[in-house]
């Protein structure tokens, strides 16, 4: 009776978790593919083929979300990688106040997104906001950060970067710390300067960390919803609407079939962009 195999737990223990996963995740996912092709009132449905998808892709108030989402994801992802890497390099040095500075950088990540959004929306008020009041003292008339349709989306993206860069920095610090000392010693013997250290050692060898940051930030950007909702609710008009906020609004409007179609599209878009990106990045990774 003391055979090793008998000590392991039976697979039946997986059943509760498995059933929950199936009922609350897999089943709705599969069902959503069907309901995305219907007029759906939650109790009643009518099959209509691809009409919801066509509506979603052709109507200007709906398909503006694709453009905005891509811009948003690319801007936030790029800035998080660049700033995160620079901060990561800076914060992996041996400084006296390193613990304090690190927590300062990480702190915004801990805040509630809604609170951050509301606080920044107030600070970005064109006449009474903190930012433009400060700019006025220096003699600059600040723009209407959230009211001007040409820059509103970028304003929200910058807040997202402020909030998310701490997480990227922590991942980069971990990546940089795991680079063995040998490389730096070899560089010192070869007479390399600090630029060489950054460009030829840190950047290539923190690649796994960078890939994680890129993937996380990019997918996060594509799915982003809460910050935009807290700051602009997609406005003015539809100018900062992302796919996720549009889906939410269609659901609010009672267009269950249409919003489900939007979710399916979001799923396809995220997969179509994230998987190739992931494969591409993995190919470039090098072993330590």
């Amino acid at each position, binding site marked *: 009776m003391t055979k090793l195999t008998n000590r392991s737990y*039976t697979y*039946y*223990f997986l*059943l*509760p978790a498995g*059933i*929950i996963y199936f009922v609350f995740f897999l089943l709705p996912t599969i069902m959503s593919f069907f309901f995305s092709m219907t*007029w759906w*009132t*939650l*109790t009643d449905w*009518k099959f209509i083929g691809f009409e919801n998808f066509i*509506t979603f892709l052709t*109507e*200007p*108030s709906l398909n503006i979300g694709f453009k905005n989402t891509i811009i948003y994801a690319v801007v936030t992802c790029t800035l998080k990688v660049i700033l995160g890497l620079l901060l990561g390099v800076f914060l992996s040095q041996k400084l006296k106040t390193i613990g304090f500075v690190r927590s300062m950088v990480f702190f915004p990540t801990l805040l509630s997104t809604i609170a951050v959004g509301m606080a920044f929306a107030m600070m*970005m*008020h*064109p*006449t*009474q*906001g903190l930012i433009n009041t400060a700019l006025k003292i220096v003699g600059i008339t600040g723009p*209407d950060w*959230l*009211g001007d*349709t040409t820059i509103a989306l970028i304003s929200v993206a910058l807040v997202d970067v402020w909030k998310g860069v701490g997480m990227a920095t922590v991942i980069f610090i971990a990546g940089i710390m795991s680079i063995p000392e040998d490389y730096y010693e070899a560089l010192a013997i070869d007479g390399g300067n600090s630029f060489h250290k950054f460009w030829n050692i840190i950047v290539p060898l923190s690649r796994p960390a960078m890939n994680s940051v890129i993937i996380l930030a990019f997918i996060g950007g594509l799915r982003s919803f809460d910050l935009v909702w807290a700051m602009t*609710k*997609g*406005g*003015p*008009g*539809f*100018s900062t609407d992302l796919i996720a906020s549009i889906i939410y*609004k269609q*659901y*609010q*409007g*009672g*267009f269950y*079939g*249409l919003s489900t179609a939007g979710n399916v599209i979001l799923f396809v878009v995220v997969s179509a962009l994230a998987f190739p990106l992931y494969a591409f990045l993995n190919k470039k990774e090098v072993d330590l």
Partner: protein
Amino acid sequence: MKAKKKIFAVLSSAALFAGILAGCSSNDSASGDKDEDSGQVTLTLLVDNQSNLDGMKAVTDAIEEKYDIKTEYELRPGGGEGDNLVKTRLATGDMTDLMAYNSGSLFQALNPEQNFLDISEESFVETIMDDAKEALSSNGKVYGIPAASFMAGGWFYNKKIYEELGLSVPKTWDELMSNNEKIKEAGKTAVIGSYKDSWTAQVIVLADNYNVLQQHPSFAEDFTANKAKIADTPGALSSFEKLAEVYDKGYLNEDFLATGYEAGLQKLAEGEGAHYPMLSFALPMLQTNYAEELDNIGFFPQPGDSADENGLTVWVPGGVFVNKNTEHPEEAKKWMEFFVSQEGNDLYNAKITPQGPPAIKGVELSDDVYGAVKDMLPYFESGKTAPALEFLSPVKGPNLPQIAVEVGSGISKAKAGAELYDKDVEKQAKQLGLEGW
């Protein structure tokens, strides 16, 4: 031994799962049951957490005293989130006995025949004003009672500024625009825009319905039947053009996209701006925050092309509806009957000053009503009122606030906005399964 273990494993996993399910299930026994000792009946009532409930509570306290029917309040969020919650609770059979909800298009979108009790035959239904009764009905059957007084949509104005500049209340749109020009020249904000709260941007469009109906008396029916589009009907399109004109002529405050509803009221009360297109439900908040300025605030309907056709667009109050599956239909009807009686109205109005004329025939208002409400009364007395479009037609596109912001801030032109809204409406009509779409 092995088999025993297997059985034990299956049983324990079943127990785990049952525990989870128990956590999910709702506590049904809490609502709607008779209290064994006193014979008291409890009715549950779902209301939104945005409204002031003092008036309703005064009425339900009296109902409890008089009929021994207790009312248990359940709060829900307002706006679109609240709509979702109501629809979900109806779809899952988890609705309260009584439900307070919007009348008109939002109510009609709830599939009333399936979900609510038909009260057309009750005698108290006769006392409801026709405009209100229609908005509380679906397919000719009445389902609800008005939960408050009428409201009106139009233009609040600051009387001090009007006196200062020697202006008079405009009877036509052109007069209003020339007033605006003078106010602008005097260095004040002519029209307060608070489009940060995008719903406020729709008011100019919605409050124009009286004028639309003057030009097209059958517009609401044609619109519902897909025979008329806003973008192709000049009278209806002009509502959007009015919204665009206010922006194009530079009458709005500089920060209109960063100003919200409450800040808009502040600008009006403090005389920073002369006009604020708004619904009369703003009055209680004005009273709470700017009581001493309240006498300086007047109200006029959104004027149309001609002074002879000057009339008021009114908002039918929300209703209280009975769940079709309630265990206490008789008590619920008794509840309603008292709510719409003169006694019920007096109790209600003692707590909440009416934001417009009463929706029940024969109910008298006391003399201390808001000045702005007194400005509305002549239109009701002479019958120059029309309900807003959302009370005449079940179709109202959910994206109107955003579209109105686009038109009202120059992002898109009036015609393009109207076309986009027509498409939005089409989705809604198809979702409702209306004829002709």
